[in-house]
């Protein structure tokens, strides 16, 4: 074998070795560079359907550790809130405060407009989970386990909302429409990533995780807006307002009065206070100008109403209307003092009830 042949073989084997080694490392430990995609947004967007109508994100860890959260906890902590968290922990074994790092959620408006059903959703939570305990707890509550593409899918019937006791006497009896009871599922997509939601969507998450394909991360329109709101914010939501409106089955009179918004985005940074931005993309520039006029009118009214209430005035003063072209944006900066003022304004509980 000549020298150049030997060099060729070495270089070729080196490329194969480095490639396979890198791939293997990425397969087992992932690339620790960032939890966010190159195209913007958290990596979990790869597992959400490309047809998502609304996508939302929350950095739970950052929000829970924020100064504002601590203040609110001291000021407004109620036994009901704590009980709710405890119940959720007892049901699923997940402590929201300590176990979850971040959540990414998706809402799909797949429901028919005639059924007034808003659609289905799935939540992906990344954190530290006791898989055995969660499965055990869910099974205790009537869930069963199926295996889907190698993942254990813990499925339960969606709890029905309580019916008011006298509602049956007022509404005439309508024969029930036979339908498959809705189910929700939970599965551990990978270590530290749990998917909870409608069974079909959770299965779709597993499909995307195992086989890839078109996902929210490949939806160009969605990702463009996610990229715009994702930087520096620890909570955000992006969605199609027109699709939501079409699915909401609103009365015609109400639907006609709603502004012709196509996309909406809400983003915020929660730390000492809340800095938030609500932006909407109107169908055209004329609609955007009309919407700006309406918001401007509401802002003037709010300023008038709060002129005598200094504790709210700072909040109203922070509302800023902006946006050009088809975009209308409303920003708000709520400092911690506003929450202090709210606490002071709240009626004190009677002695012995604290």
């Amino acid at each position, binding site marked *: 074998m000549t020298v150049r042949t030997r060099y060729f073989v070495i270089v070729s084997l080196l490329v194969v070795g480095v490639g396979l080694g890198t791939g*293997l490392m990425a397969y087992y430990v992932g690339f620790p560079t960032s939890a966010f995609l190159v195209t913007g947004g958290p990596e979990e967007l790869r597992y959400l359907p490309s047809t998502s109508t609304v996508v939302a994100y929350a950095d739970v860890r950052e929000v829970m550790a924020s100064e504002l959260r601590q203040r609110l906890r001291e000021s407004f902590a109620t036994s009901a809130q704590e009980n709710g968290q405890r119940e959720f922990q007892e049901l699923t074994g997940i402590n929201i405060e300590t176990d979850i790092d971040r959540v990414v959620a998706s809402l799909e408006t797949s429901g028919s407009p005639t059924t007034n059903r808003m659609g289905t959703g799935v939540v992906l939570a990344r954190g530290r989970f006791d898989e055995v305990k969660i499965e055990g707890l869910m099974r205790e509550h009537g869930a069963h386990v199926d295996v889907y593409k190698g993942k254990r899918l813990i499925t339960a019937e969606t709890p029905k909302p309580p019916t008011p006791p006298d509602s049956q006497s007022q509404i005439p009896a309508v024969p029930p429409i036979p339908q498959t009871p809705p189910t929700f599922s939970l599965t551990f997509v990978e270590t530290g990533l749990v998917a909870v939601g409608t069974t079909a969507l959770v299965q779709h998450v597993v499909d995307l995780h195992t086989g890839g394909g078109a996902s929210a991360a490949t939806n160009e329109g969605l990702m463009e807006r996610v990229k715009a709101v994702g930087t520096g914010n620890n909570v955000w939501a992006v969605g199609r307002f027109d699709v939501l409106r079409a699915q909401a089955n609103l009365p015609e009179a109400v639907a006609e009065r709603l502004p012709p918004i196509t996309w909406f985005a809400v983003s915020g940074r929660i730390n000492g206070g809340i800095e938030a931005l609500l932006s909407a993309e109107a169908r055209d520039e004329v609609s955007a100008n009309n919407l700006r006029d309406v918001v401007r009118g509401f802002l003037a009214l709010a300023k008038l109403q709060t002129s005598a209430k200094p504790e709210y005035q700072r909040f109203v003063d922070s509302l800023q209307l902006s946006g050009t072209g088809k975009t209308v944006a409303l920003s708000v900066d709520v400092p911690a003092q506003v929450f202090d003022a709210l606490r002071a304004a709240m009626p004190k509980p009677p002695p012995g009830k604290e």
Partner: protein
Amino acid sequence: MSARPTLFSSALRVFDFSLGQMLWSRRSVFLGLLVGAPIVLAVVVRIFAIAGWLPIVNGSQVGGPALFGVLMWLLFVRFVVPVLGVFYGTSLMADEVDDKTITYLFTRPVPRASVLLGKYLAYLACVVLLLLPSIIIIFFLVVPIGGSIGQAFPQLAADLGMVAVGVAAYGAVFAFVGAWLKRPLIVGLVFAFGWEQTVLLIPGYLKRLTVAYYLQALVPHAMPQDSALSMLLGMFQDLPSVWVSLVCLAAIIAAALWLGGRAVENREYVLEQ
């Protein structure tokens, strides 16, 4: 008097000098083009992805893993691997005949079949050493477009294995054709792009007489499902299991090499003056 070298040790000697010959021959320019073109295509795709010019399908951008699957299936499995098998496999013996150098090999005190076996091993090393790095480079260029390298890695590993097995199977079949027939290239092209492509579309057992039938069963996920041809294929698809495919491909390789070796041992090569 020393003992006659064994088939395998003789094949290794032939492999040693044939690898260099094969790598730095004019045919390697063709191989370089076949291997380099997909890399250029992947670079273009990556640039398009960065610039946001990738096509939108059903409101979503095409994902990197899906693109890689399509590239692997349409470009490598259906084209590059059979083409390399035909051009390299059929020329293993034919080149020596055309260059009138086969006499020098046959006058050595080695089994004649070791010439074919050594050249086949050199072909395998040459093609695999060029193809696999090319696929890995394409993988790292294309998959990060909306995909995860870690998640797609099993697909890469399976695809690399499939390509290596495919190169070995097609190479063995065409090495036999090259050793047996006088004008093997035409027969090779008709087999790879006529017989195999047609028979795969026809329901029945005929498809079992192709290499592609067993090869596509190794990585069925890479086959795109959105074309009319794929739908047609899907209707008649009865893919064997991975293990059956591997056993059949190993049998094809062994049988083709044995028959090729027999042909080289028994055939009288007439050098045109």
